[in-house]
């Protein structure tokens, strides 16, 4: 009986060590959500220049509330009522949120085309500026992010910090692309710490 116990004790110890080792290896991978990065890429083909910026969203979340300058304070930005042109943005967003996927605005003019639509939980804005080197601007914003932006109690504030938190929780998303004859700009969020 004692011999069997003696034999079992080292085996149990080894198994415990193995289990502890496996837990230590696997636990961080399960517990820690992947860090998200905001990427900005600007390429100017005519000048042969490129600028890449990668910002960890967790860092941006910490830094933003520390900036108190102009309209920005505590991670929120104040938008003056005059700039809203009397539009009740919250009511407008509520209408967009509950509406089915659709194209809401289509404007075709001599100088520019504008299209605003809702598709797959995103608000999509597409602008072609024919006067400015045929510049094409595409903006895709998940409605969750827009909701977070307007999640403050005050009507004249946008909660940028809340939007960053919502971006962290959202999947990979291409937010902005700007193309013209000389420059390409891309802004997107994903879990990779490089732009390769």
């Amino acid at each position, binding site marked *: 009986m004692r011999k069997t116990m003696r034999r079992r004790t080292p085996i149990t110890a080894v198994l415990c060590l193995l289990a502890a080792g496996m837990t230590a290896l696997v636990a961080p991978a399960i517990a820690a959500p992947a*860090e998200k*990065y905001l990427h900005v890429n600007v390429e100017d083909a005519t*000048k*042969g*220049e*490129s*600028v*890449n*910026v*990668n*910002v*960890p969203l*967790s*860092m*941006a*979340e*910490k*830094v933003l*509330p*520390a*900036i*108190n300058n102009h309209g920005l304070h505590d991670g929120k930005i104040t938008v003056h009522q005059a700039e809203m042109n009397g539009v009740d943005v919250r009511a407008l967003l509520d209408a967009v949120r509950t509406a089915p996927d659709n194209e809401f605005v289509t404007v075709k003019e001599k100088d520019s085309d504008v299209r605003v639509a809702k598709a797959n939980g995103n608000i999509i804005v597409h602008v072609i500026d024919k006067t400015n080197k045929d510049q094409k601007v595409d903006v895709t914003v998940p409605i969750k992010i827009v909701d977070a932006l307007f999640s403050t109690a005050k009507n004249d504030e946008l909660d940028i910090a809340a939007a960053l938190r919502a971006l962290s929780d959202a999947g990979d998303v291409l937010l902005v692309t700007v193309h013209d004859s000389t420059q390409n700009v891309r802004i997107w969020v994903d879990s990779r*710490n*490089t732009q390769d």
Partner: protein
Amino acid sequence: MILLAKVALGVAGVAVAGAGMLCSEGLIHVKVVEKQAQGVHINLIAPAVLVPMCMHFAPQRNLAQAARQIQPYMPVVRAVMDGLHDSDDVVLVEVHGPGEYVHVAKSGGSIVVDVDDETDSVHVSAPIRVISSTVDDIAAADSNSY
């Protein structure tokens, strides 16, 4: 003979412990190369632990003006340092242009800056913890100078 060996072991132990203590906070590396003929070529590697120690010997009065200038930005600086400290290694900024290259990254607890253009090449790397404590010391210099 055995006594000599013990003494040698003791000296070696103290040297290793001293080197370990000096390098415990990491290293600061500054490399500047001027590309023209007979240009300056500096390559300095120093233990980062020396920086906060040297800060204690810097005349506080001379730091007071820097302290007053930096104090309004300290909440942002502290937030940036905390954020960088907690984040994974990442290339923060990369600029490629004709004849120029700029690279700012967080790598292994340090901030690494590389700038390379047609005339100069500069490499600076410093541990985030040391940058953070040094900036804190500078910001505190104003209150310490009176």
